[in-house]
């Protein structure tokens, strides 16, 4: 299956892109996605350790099972105001 991942804030810099298209095995979870992305670079892995994941308009835990076509976002630590 394939999912789309929007890279927010500092994650775009380490991912090298604002958006990623990622292929995952059927039944993969957010945790599996993070493991796969972490393999891209040490820097990406370090940033991902502090990231939450959103699916649609909700933040989801890492055990969440993904489905084909999911639109996800990587949310690094926030600092509004």
């Amino acid at each position, binding site marked *: 299956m394939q999912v789309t991942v929007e890279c927010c*804030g500092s994650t775009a810099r380490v991912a090298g892109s604002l958006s990623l298209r990622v292929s995952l095995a059927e039944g993969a979870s957010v945790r599996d996605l993070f493991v796969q992305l972490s393999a891209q670079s040490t820097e990406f892995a370090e940033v991902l350790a502090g990231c939450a994941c959103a699916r649609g308009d909700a933040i989801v835990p890492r055990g969440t099972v993904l489905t084909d076509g999911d639109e996800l976002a990587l949310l690094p630590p926030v600092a509004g105001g």
Partner: protein
Amino acid sequence: MSTQDFPRIQSAPLSLDALLTGSERDDCGALAIFAGTVRDHHEGRAVRALTYSSYARVAEKLIREIETEIAARFNVPLCLAVHRVGALAIGETAILAIARGHHRAETFAAMQALVEAVKHRVPIWKEEFYTDGSSAFVNGCTLVAAEDLPPAESRLHCTPTQSIEA
């Protein structure tokens, strides 16, 4: 436009008049207003500009939830907050919030809680651009679900990360 309809994340300059319009309540004797503006320094570094970005799909929903939560917790009839995104110059307004309450004590308290919650719980990011040509994202509070955090970890903030040297 009702107070629930307007976007909480806005790319245009924020308007206090727009926020106040339609918010009047005869049962409230207190109105608290907060504006957060772009400062020209951060942790000893001279800042020339900021860029705010957001994941609006979650941010819009969370700000509305925070407004409702804070209004209930402090027993104030109205809490509203809007946050700017995009490139901001020194002195521009990044966040505007209002609270209307029956009395000043709970209204002040609600305002402080509202602003803190928006700063710490909403997916908004701040990249600072320094006068020496470098930039950095301000590292704030993690949104990682509690069940996914190591036991000793808490919602820490704020140190700059992801620096780009000039």
